[in-house]
């Protein structure tokens, strides 16, 4: 097996991180309109854009892994 492919244990880690990041992004997005302090609002909004990039990268790694082919 090509050692550049994604191993099953890595896929599980990616799954864990992706799940975590999805809830983080959802929370930052839904909480930021509720915040009154502008500085905190800006921190949450930066988190939204950084997390969006992270999630896209994690998703493309997951799509390359073997579990993507298990999807029906």
């Amino acid at each position: 097996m090509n050692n550049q492919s994604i191993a099953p244990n890595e896929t599980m880690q990616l799954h864990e991180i992706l799940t975590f990041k999805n809830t983080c992004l959802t929370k930052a997005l839904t909480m930021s309109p509720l915040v009154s302090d502008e500085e905190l609002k800006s921190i949450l909004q930066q988190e939204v854009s950084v997390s969006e990039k992270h999630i896209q990268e994690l998703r493309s790694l997951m799509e390359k892994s073997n579990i993507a082919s298990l999807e029906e």
Partner: protein
Amino acid sequence: MNGLIESLTGMSKMTDQVIATDFLISAKSGVQNYAVAITESTSLEVRAILKKQLQDAIQTHEKISNYMMEKGYYNAYDLGEQYKVDMETTDTTLGLTKNLK
């Protein structure tokens, strides 16, 4: 948070603190989760992406923890002050359940 929710929950000006604290806890978990994932990674591509994202997670943690120290929500160098904040927050939290009973 908007006035209606504030008065309903009795949290008033606490909400920024609650949201900031929740975000700090997430930021800490993020750094820990990435560090664990990197120790399980074997391919160059996965490791490179996780390492880069770990750096971002560390920066996010730095931003929110500095913010909380500036605001006095988190007093790493003054335990007495931190105790006061902890007890005030605890009273507010326990007060929430009373209001709803």
